[in-house]
């Protein structure tokens, strides 16, 4: 269920730079905390995130417990054609997530 929100511009021109944003709902449990009875809470952070633009890898992030909970990433790409910006990420628990956004390139 709604684990991430992606934002790309509604339309970009070919060759132009455009900003991509992704906000992910994830506790990013650091592994350094204990619960109310003192038992350590197991680390569960997003380990790796990959962004593909029309199938080609555009960004790969090695994440760790230094990231805040519910991380927000933003970066720029060059518009080469209409298609999709697709994200995939995996956390320590081994859960895989995927989310994508459609992109329209004019010209």
């Amino acid at each position, binding site marked *: *269920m*709604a684990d991430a*929100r992606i934002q790309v511009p509604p339309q970009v021109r070919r060759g132009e730079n455009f900003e991509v*944003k992704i*906000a992910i*709902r994830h506790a990013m449990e650091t592994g350094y905390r204990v619960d109310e009875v003192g038992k350590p809470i197991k680390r569960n952070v997003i380990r790796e995130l990959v962004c593909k633009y029309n199938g080609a890898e555009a960004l790969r992030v090695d994440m760790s417990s230094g990231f*805040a*909970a*519910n991380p*927000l990433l933003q970066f720029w790409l060059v518009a080469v054609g209409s298609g999709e910006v697709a994200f995939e990420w995996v956390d320590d628990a081994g859960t895989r997530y995927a989310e994508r956004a459609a992109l329209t390139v004019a010209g």
Partner: protein
Amino acid sequence: MARRAAIPLALIGAGAALCVSLAYAQSPAARAIPLTELKSGLAYTGEDVRALQADDFANPGMLWVERGEKIWNTPAGTSAKSCAACHGNAKSSMKGVAARYPAIDAKSGRLFNIEARINASRTGQQQAEAFAPESEDLLAITAYVNYQSRGAAVGVAIDGAAREHFERGRAFYYTRRGQMNMSCATCHEQNFGKRLFAETISQGQPNDFPIYRLEWQTMGSLHRRLRACLYGVRAELLPIGSPELLDVELFLAWRAQGLKGEAPGVRR
């Protein structure tokens, strides 16, 4: 000598407190902060926090709002009905609703906040299990419903059956408690705008809940925030959804009359 002087002073103090409570009993409209001087907690945060709340993409609370929208449209329970099956589009049907809560539930006669109202619909209409207090799903659907009251002026009814809840809430608000021997009013009526270490004390307004609190690194309800205050003054931590916290929630909503809804808020 000093000790002797303390007794009459204490008596005067008790007398003054009695006068105050009598004055409140006689004029229900007595407000410590005039309506024109009410300020959302946002006014007491830093510029960075204000920017984070104002940006609908960067505001982390919007992740819960979006999840809440999915819950709204997903059938649940043995009725296999979604919230939308009865209430339709939340954008119109829930507009301004949260601004009128807490309110007395006509059927049970009990005081409901939005969380209790949602769970009553879950167990009653949807025939589904109630969401656990402070669970991700309850925070999400609450955030989604309260989001529809963005910009709506807070205004709750305190007459009829709500009256006794209101009075109890007000008494709670002005009662000193905990090892620090402080009431809610000590900070939020007598000292707002001043510093408490690195923090600026706010008026303690409830118009932006549930909030994403950076200290928590997650969303939290008003009751969770109230518990944080109780913890701060080293008082007994009341359970989330307890009658005492519901009563004080009603008093806070009355106290915030006219403030515009801001959910989901972001706070330090």
